[in-house]
């Protein structure tokens, strides 16, 4: 019942989203292009760097590109459904959270649906394309279960993102002053784009266990890479994702309980 309700809500919100976007078509494409340009910049970086060196640690160019392609997939899914960047400003400072809490649907569900951002999914599609190109270049074998595994791993990685950023958004329930912590984490996330093996032990530990951004890129991607295939670590992805998501939801719930409104 609860799920069916959420799905029908989702349909309504998407309908509204499409209506507003059709009014400003140019904005839609500008947003898509801007997302893609940022990825293009990172890919150009990889291509240019590999003109000077045959390998990054013991990772070849196609392998690094493969990891980057994977990295784009869960990030696109996450940005589509969990666009919480302006949560503190819009919902806490301007008091829109009050409106959310008077409604029967779950508060996080509503906040997520109000900010749903489908253009980000195009980034995921481009990521799939990049992965396929690198896959062919590496001559990796293709198994019937690979697409299924990719879906499971993508879900796991997406949960890592959603959990972490939900927890961070919920921090604004406790303190409405801008903490600057979200951009901080966002920048750490960039470390996950590249093989974690190039970092030192402390950073590798941080990326695996504390802010598990290695699970949104290199660990799950290496499931498919023969030379770096570490399947045990790759299979941790959905588990880590579930744990981080549970943590994020717990922080959110504590935050909502504490919330007293902006008072205006």
């Amino acid at each position: 019942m609860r799920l069916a309700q959420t799905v029908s809500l989702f349909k309504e919100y998407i309908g509204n989203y499409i209506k507003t976007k059709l009014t400003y078509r140019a904005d839609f494409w500008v947003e898509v292009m801007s997302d893609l340009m940022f990825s293009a910049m990172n890919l150009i970086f990889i291509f240019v760097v590999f003109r000077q060196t045959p390998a990054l640690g013991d990772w070849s160019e196609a392998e690094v590109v493969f990891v980057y392609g994977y990295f784009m997939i869960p990030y696109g899914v996450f940005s589509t459904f969990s666009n919480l960047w302006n949560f503190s400003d819009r919902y806490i400072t301007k008091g829109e959270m009050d409106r959310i809490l008077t409604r029967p649907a779950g508060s996080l569900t509503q906040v997520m649906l109000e900010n749903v951002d489908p253009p980000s999914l195009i980034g995921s599609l481009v990521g799939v394309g990049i992965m396929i190109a690198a896959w062919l270049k590496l001559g990796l074998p293709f198994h019937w279960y690979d697409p299924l595994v990719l879906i499971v791993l993508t879900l796991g990685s997406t949960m890592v993102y959603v959990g972490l950023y939900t927890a961070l958004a919920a921090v604004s329930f406790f303190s409405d002053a801008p903490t600057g912590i979200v951009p901080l984490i966002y920048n750490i996330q960039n470390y996950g784009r590249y093989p974690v093996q190039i970092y030192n032990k402390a950073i590798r530990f941080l990326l695996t266990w504390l802010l598990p951004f290695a699970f949104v890129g290199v660990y799950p991607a290496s499931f498919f890479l023969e030379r770096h295939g570490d399947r045990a670590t790759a299979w941790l992805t959905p588990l880590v994702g579930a744990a981080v998501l549970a943590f994020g939801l717990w922080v959110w719930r504590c935050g909502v309980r504490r919330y007293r409104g902006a008072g205006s």
Partner: protein
Amino acid sequence: MISAYLDFIRIRFLMMLAYRVNYYSGIIIYAINIGAYYFMWRAIYGDAETLGGFTAMQMTTYVAVSWMARAFYFNNLDREISNEIRDGSVAVQMTRPISYLMVKAMQGFGEGLFRLLLFMAPGMVVVKLIFPIELPADPARWLVFFAMLWFSFVINTQLNIMTGLFAFFVENNQGLMNLKRIAIDLLSGVILPMSFFPEWARAILNWLPFQAITYLPSSVFTGRLNGADVGNALLVQIVWFAALLVPIAWMWRAARRRLFVQGG
């Protein structure tokens, strides 16, 4: 007249000072970014002595000083100008007996000055403590570097003003602003020195203003450019500064003829 412009610098500086807490986390973010590229470059170098004419030590220094320089020259004048054009407040500013564009440039400088003193200077100390970098011993080099840094700021500001002024001519210049930001990060040499690009790309980049923003000053700072090359680098910056004045003056004249403010 001059004192009016100086006041704009002062006011913006004080405004930034009022919100300085945001900047402490900014220093950490820059350290995180420098760290990501530091490990990346270390893996890229592997056993190689020099790549693209940089030793590993010079490269680390290059990355650090480029990011710190970015803190100084970076500003959002393009966004500020295009917002003021879109909401029409530019008309009020135009009636004042001072140059609108100069006011904007001064505000940008106040912001840059703030970041130079409260961000770049402490940031450089933090970076020096964490990463193995080599600061120039020769005081003359420091002097030239600061002169070049000034021109980095001026040229970047000119490009920002041009991008912002586009709002007079197109309805939505968001895409253009995003494109400009990525172009500057990629093509000015913040994430990748020019000398790493393939020959054909370098031939094009040499004729674009971007390298004058980061690559040239940082190359002087790291000691990759010496003797007459230093003078040439400074000359390139001065020529770009003079050349960019022309399109700005032209755009500004054309813009004033187009300006049509609704209501008010």
